[in-house]
């Protein structure tokens, strides 16, 4: 089969690789009909997340048709159309029982490695480095799906691939970002990063009862999509964000702030950008956490900062004084996708959220290397790329 493989930093190529096979009785093989490039794939592409091997198949947002099932997969049959959550979860451990699927205690065979870096291990993830298990990803023609009796959601109506594909990651990730804000009537929510996750966080915050949602980015085309979901927008290259947010909230600050940026943030202040870029390049810190620092400083006293942007290791100049003295709550996590699949499918079906607004590019899998390039370089107003094998 053909698959998009990581061949080195900023080097991906479509390679001919062996087809996957059933390795465990709870596996299924899915023939991919649609897959997408995620902003978090760019962290792997740019080499900011460790434990990649030359030849790893990338991709954790994919859906398709079941073509083979293991003997213990009784909920699926050949021919079923499924979307597959990006975290791999066993459904039986303590974490899965508590619906914390991205913290599954069994699905990461490299748990010991992750433990050394992070203290405790997290779940396996498709196509997302050996730190999360070394699982082949979904930017391919076929994927082996472990614990297929737990993860995949069957799509039984006529919703298109583009309407349901983002249930695999970015729609529930944006939703969880908003849900962690514990939104109350009258709340203002500010979202750093108006990429697809931030855009979905905007839509989700409104559905969860926010009064106002403010999206922050520097690219007008991304802010324009956030406005489609109802956001007021701020371009941080034009305004001072702390001041603008104070002005918009009568000096209080937003009730909750969502960091949908993660480790490769940019700052409008050249000195700060240069500081974090240099430290990151010298491996003195793994993150460029400008958005997170700003979100913390912006949120109102006793507010909540919700972090769904991806971080890999250690950050510098963390404003713990602001967090502690101002009673700030930080909530975070890789999305526990499984728990949001059905409720969000209902929101898509009812039309409350139209996920297709985020798509700007459609390509063949063979053109994925070009897709990575234009997505990373923000060329051609590239917001979200859907690939078809």
């Amino acid at each position: 089969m053909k698959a998009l493989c990581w061949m080195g930093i900023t080097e991906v190529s479509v390679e001919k690789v062996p087809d996957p096979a059933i390795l465990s009785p709870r596996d299924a093989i899915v023939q991919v009909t649609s897959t997408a490039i995620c902003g978090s794939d760019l962290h792997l592409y740019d080499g900011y997340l460790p434990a990649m091997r030359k030849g790893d198949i990338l991709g954790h947002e994919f859906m398709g048709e079941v073509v083979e099932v293991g003997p213990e997969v009784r909920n699926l049959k050949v021919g079923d159309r499924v979307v597959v959550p990006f975290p791999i979860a066993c459904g039986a451990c303590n974490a899965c029982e508590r619906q914390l699927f991205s913290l599954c205690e069994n699905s990461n065979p490299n748990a010991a490695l992750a433990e050394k870096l992070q203290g405790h291990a997290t779940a396996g993830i498709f196509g997302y480095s050996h730190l999360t298990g070394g699982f082949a990803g979904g930017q391919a023609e076929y994927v082996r799906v472990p614990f297929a009796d737990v993860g995949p959601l069957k799509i039984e109506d006529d919703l298109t691939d583009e309407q349901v594909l983002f249930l695999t990651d970015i729609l529930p990730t944006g939703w969880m970002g908003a849900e962690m804000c514990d939104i109350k009537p009258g709340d203002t929510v500010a979202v750093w990063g108006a990429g697809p996750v931030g855009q979905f966080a905007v839509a989700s915050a409104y559905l969860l009862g926010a009064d106002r949602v403010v999206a922050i980015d520097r690219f007008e085309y991304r802010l324009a999509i956030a406005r489609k979901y109802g956001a007021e927008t701020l371009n941080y290259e034009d305004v001072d964000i702390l001041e603008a947010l104070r002005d918009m909230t009568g000096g209080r600050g937003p009730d909750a702030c969502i960091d949908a940026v993660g480790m490769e943030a940019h700052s409008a202040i050249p000195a700060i950008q240069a500081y974090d870029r240099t430290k990151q390049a010298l491996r003195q810190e793994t993150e460029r956490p400008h958005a997170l620092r700003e979100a913390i400083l912006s949120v109102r006293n006793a507010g909540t900062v919700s972090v769904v942007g991806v971080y890999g290791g250690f950050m510098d100049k963390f404003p713990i004084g602001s967090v502690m003295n101002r009673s700030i709550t930080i909530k975070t996590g890789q999305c526990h996708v499984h728990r949001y699949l059905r409720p969000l499918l209902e929101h898509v079906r009812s039309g409350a959220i139209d996920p297709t607004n985020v798509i700007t590019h459609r390509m063949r899998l063979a053109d994925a290397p070009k897709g990575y390039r234009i997505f990373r370089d923000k060329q051609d107003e590239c917001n979200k790329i859907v690939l078809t094998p």
Partner: protein
Amino acid sequence: MAASDNGRLDGLTRFLGWSSLGLGVAQLAAPHRVARLAGVDDSATAPLVIRAVGGRELIHAAGLLGSDRHRAWAKTRVAGDALDLAVLAYALNGRDGDRRRRAKAATAAVAGIAALDVYAAIRASKVRGDTKRQSLHASVTINRPPAEVYAFWRDFTNLPAFMAHLESVETLGGFRSRWTAKAPAGRTVTWEAELVDDSPNRLVAWRSLPGATVPNSGRVRFVEAPGGRGTEVHVEMEYEIPAGKLGAVVARLFGEEPEQQVRDDLRRCKQVLETGDVVVSDGTPDGIKARRTLAQRPARPETVGSAR
């Protein structure tokens, strides 16, 4: 949670290590003062030699205090002492008066330390001839009731399903069992063990019978985890690595981090009991093996898949 052996940093090793550190720092920072103390402050090259010796002392210190093989480092100090005494003898030769007196005092001090170093080195080589007694412990929480987890462990024939280096366990009756482990180069190691304690749902303890290549004993405790979290499994083991060639083979068998291997085993045990199988990925077709994580395959299917 580090594996401990009887080569712990003892008082003498620590004293010698800190002496090296102190001396090294003084020689590097104030070579002229040291030169005066040793009575060689009339030599132009002395500060240079003293600085070089200071650098060497710091290497001794790092080896004695920082390395796992501090016993081997004790020997390097003896070599260093011999060198220092030779240099001092040369210095004594060409000096008289107060300088000669100071050089004599320095020589006496170095000779005293050399005696300590020789003692430490001889003692170290004696210890190396003994077996190495090791202990380790590891634990995991399994989301199953204690009765089920205990029953799974109590049937020793289940153990090879999750203990990576075990090939088989046969029960021999009368609390005895025969264990076969995989050794390098396709060989196996076999030993017999007896159950020494068995409290249903709480504890299993064993000890190897005389004649085992690696005498070992241990216990597995099963404790109900609070709030319905299942069962905590606590493993404690003691084992003796024999000296010599055999010990090297056994050390390879157990890997460099035996405790990590037991933790891996416990993880696999959790996977088998909670999910029914050992979890594998394309990068880890054999499942968990922490010591292989840095050499694992790329995350793509192996060539076993049928072409579609």
